[in-house]
């Protein structure tokens, strides 16, 4: 009998574990709460350690082809026969039944039928409603029917019914009848042999970390927001600007904002040192002056080249954790002790980027949170032969480590469900 598994979360680890298991003949139900897959990586554009697309993925549709790479964009995730993807869906309950689980999920309507849409984008063109784009930082807009990011998979647009006026223009223009403004949310129960938690992490928006005036200034931003600005498809076309619209010439980065901090997140978020260095290097390439305030620089060997090239390219390093970033005459000023010269510095810059903690997303989902441990992270094997976790759901880390773990868990699941040759 065909075994099946439910994977919760279609970030890089969730996609990877799903692909591997479908390759091994296990049917996968992949559940994603966002309208597009890719998780955190969809925000990032270029990622370390290779500096290429976040979307680059291992989608080996050919068994032996252990070497080729394809990207999310290149369709395969949604085209595998034994992989069923549920977007805009959340797990409502997980109950043990027989040898496995009954999992009930609820799906929000997309109002665009994925099986019918040809992605001609005509509907977006005719839509009259323009609202602020949540992915854009500098005033970009989107329509009420929209695609969150151009590379997003599935490619089909979705409708934000909150802003939709139901004028029907998109319905008229869609000759393939893909749009249904009356679509209702749906529920489904899946009987499954195993559950894999791949709920991942989010970059915690630094709203409430005292001292760093994230709320008061749009020139104090997070790394995910900087990544969107550096992305040539973003609303600034890859130009890094201040909230006033000027091109930035000086950036200060603050590491460990809320990480390694008993008041916020006790653990080290592990990936922020590397992505700060990656962004610092990209900013230097644009001729922007960069200062990084750090406590310890923690980069794994496979990303060490970012530290070397940041130093080489003239990124300035200050060892000290800033107490605050304040806005003076419209500019963010970082107040930090350079502990190596024992001098109190007031660094004025155009932009301050806060390396905010990576916080587990699973914790916000009731049925999933029951399987989580310390700090909201899960063990790789939560429950022998039944519940597994991989990727950043087991702790913050970078892509290579996530991928290795997803692959390892795929083997474990296969071995537990199928036993072997």
């Amino acid at each position, binding site marked *: 009998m065909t075994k099946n598994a439910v994977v919760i979360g279609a970030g890089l680890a969730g996609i990877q574990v799903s692909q591997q298991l479908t390759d091994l003949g296990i049917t996968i139900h992949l559940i994603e709460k966002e309208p597009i897959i890719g998780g955190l990586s969809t925000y990032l554009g270029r990622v370390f350690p290779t500096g290429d697309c976040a979307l680059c993925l291992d989608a080996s549709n050919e068994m032996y*082809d252990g*070497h080729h790479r394809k990207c999310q964009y290149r369709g395969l995730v949604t*085209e595998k026969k034994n992989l069923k993807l549920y977007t805009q869906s959340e797990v409502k309950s997980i109950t043990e039944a027989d040898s496995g689980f009954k999992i009930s999920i609820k799906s929000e309507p997309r109002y665009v039928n994925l099986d019918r849409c040809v992605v001609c984008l005509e509907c977006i063109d005719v839509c009259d409603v323009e609202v602020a784009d949540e992915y854009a930082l500098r005033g970009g807009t989107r329509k009420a029917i929209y695609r969150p990011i151009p590379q997003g998979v599935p490619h089909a647009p979705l409708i934000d019914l909150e802003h939709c006026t139901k004028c029907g223009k998109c319905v008229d223009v869609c000759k393939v009848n893909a749009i249904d403004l009356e679509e209702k949310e749906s529920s489904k129960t899946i009987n499954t042999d195993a559950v894999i938690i791949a709920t991942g992490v989010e970059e915690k928006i630094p709203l409430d970390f005292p001292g760093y005036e994230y709320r008061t200034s749009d020139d104090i931003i997070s790394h995910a927001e900087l990544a969107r600005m550096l992305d*040539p*498809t973003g609303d600034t076309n890859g130009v890094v600007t201040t909230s006033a619209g000027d091109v930035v010439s000086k950036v200060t980065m603050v590491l460990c904002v809320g990480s390694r901090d008993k008041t916020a997140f006790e653990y080290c978020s592990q990936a922020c040192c590397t992505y700060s260095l990656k962004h610092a290097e990209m900013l230097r390439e644009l001729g922007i002056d960069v200062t990084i305030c750090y406590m310890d620089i923690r980069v794994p*060997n496979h990303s060490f080249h970012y530290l070397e090239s940041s130093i080489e390219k003239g990124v300035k390093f200050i060892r000290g954790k800033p107490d605050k970033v304040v806005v003076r005459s419209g500019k963010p000023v970082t107040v930090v002790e350079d502990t190596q010269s024992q001098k109190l510095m007031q660094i004025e810059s155009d932009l301050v980027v806060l390396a905010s903690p990576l916080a587990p997303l699973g914790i916000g989902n009731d049925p999933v949170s029951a399987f989580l441990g310390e700090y909201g992270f899960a063990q790789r094997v939560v429950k022998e032969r039944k519940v597994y976790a991989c990727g950043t759901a087991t702790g913050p880390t970078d*892509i290579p480590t996530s991928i290795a773990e997803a692959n390892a868990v795929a083997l474990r699941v296969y071995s537990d469900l199928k036993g072997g040759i």
Partner: protein
Amino acid sequence: MKKLFLCTCNKTLNKWLDLERIQKEIGSTFESVKVHDALCLEEGLAFLDSEVSKDDAIVIGACTSQIIGVPLERRLKTEQVSFVPIREHVAWVHKEDKKSATNKAIILLQDGAIHVNHMEPKTAVDLQIEKKILVVGGGLAGLKVASDLVQLGVEVTLLEPPEFNKDDYVEKNQFMADSSTLKDTVNGLLATSKGAKKLNGTVTSLSGRAGLFSVIIKLDDGKEMDLLVGAIVVATHTEQSAPSLAKTSLYGKSENSVLISELATLASNKSGKTILVAQDPTYHESDAEGSYLLREVTQAAEKGNTVIVAHFNIYTKDENLYRKARESGVIFVRGTLEKVDKKKDQFVCRLENTLESQVREFTVDYIVLQPERKPWSGTRKLANTLDLNLDQSGFIKTRYSKMKPVQTSKRGIFIAGNAKTPMNLNDALASASNASLEVFKNIIAEGERKGWIPVIDEEQCDLCEACVNACPNDALRRDEDLIKHVPMNCEFCGICVSACPTRAIEFQSHKKDSWLARIEAIGANHKKLEGKKPFTLVYACSECANASIDQAGFTGKGYPTGTYVLQFPCAGMVSPIEILKGLVEGAEQVIVAHCPPGGCHHQTGDHLSELVVKFTQDMLTSIGQDPSRIKATYMIAALPNKMQEEVAHRG
């Protein structure tokens, strides 16, 4: 029959393309031209089912093959298909100029017609795979791989290094985890890997191909044995060596100056001693080594010793280890040990505490050094034997560090755990199971592997072996007076074609003549339709560069018309001949677009195409032509603006 199918994409493409003119002007090239509004939907697929027979050669003018190619691959009866992405490469990027966009579509569809003329059926590759695995062990990950595979019912030979015994798994890997976890894990794995055949010895030679390797092993007793395996996992261990700080610290001169692996013994015998533990600032330690240091100093402090750590960076994945160390009374000083003087039984250590800009002296009983962790001493030799690449630190290099953490440069050979870099136990076990998975997928592979392969013309080949050296996958080998192709190793990239100086290698479906004919036709058709307007040829690899060009369409990053993209399997297949041919046919500019630096899916194509372009530029310079007419650049989907940036803008 040669047929053209055009898709209007929900009747939208006619906004930017004059589909009627296209049908009219191109009608004579094809036996039939059919238009559909949604080829990718079920009705479109059914339409193709009814219209296309097994012997047809067809051109699909629709969206990119990355999208429509997926359902079509499953449904089309013929393999002779050429995709012309009139949506992403034409309509969506030339919205301002319908006439020129239509011209471009016509030119590309005509190119598709020539392309499909040269198309051959894919060659099926022999998939004979030996269902046995060799693990070159020593590291804990080797034991894990053996255990994983044994439990999956795979026959495994675990080759441990000469004179290695099972105690070494704990002994040599102390840094990976706390000792009780480590011992429990090793004991567990020793039990579950019992079914593996364990040997001590070294690999002395490797032949054969992925799926069917022949390995010769020299055993500890001097005997040699021959082993036939389907895949190999290298899971060697690491070794520690004294850091550059050793001399300063009188390491080797005084028995009270030791490496951190001896701290536990030292601390268990004595308490109330003062111990200085020093990191070497020239060495970049891993989180595993950082955590190890924290565990060891905590223990020493808990035993009642005064422990001072001279560090410059604390690296651990477990912040609580660092907290615990501080709370146990370990004193951290951020500075580098500069000078050590012996004073009776003690050492006077001098260092600058950078956090107070003050030089301090500490009188201590012991100096303990954080060693450098190096690959197993036999790694270089093993890598030579197996033909694997090494990284800067001498560890075995992976093929693609982001998504392929256990694949080496050689197909069928994988690495696990500390063979790659020093890892903590948790990561090493994940790495090992990852390798087990890849190996397992290989040996249970069924069905056939198909692709277009290089065909060597024996008459023209002068046995220079340029192709053998250029092939990134060891798929071409010299066998006496012949160059032979090893299809199982081949990744169908075509790099061998551009490497061959005598042009003796033809690549199926991408014959040299086909490129020349296509380039010639594009030049001629462009002149016919666009007159003297300059044009650009983009030779794009079918991986990253093509994805980037598709994304230019999706994101509306338009570029001038008169830009024609020819898709090569890999940019490394492009030779100066195709570049020069482009110029000869009148292209103002030829761009070779490849994957990002170091990110070629075939390993070397990015580098090779840069070399080929540089070489061709030099040729142009020497004959007084403008070398800036040609260039090589990388394109990736995350940078869909690359086409816009690279294609020359004309008035």
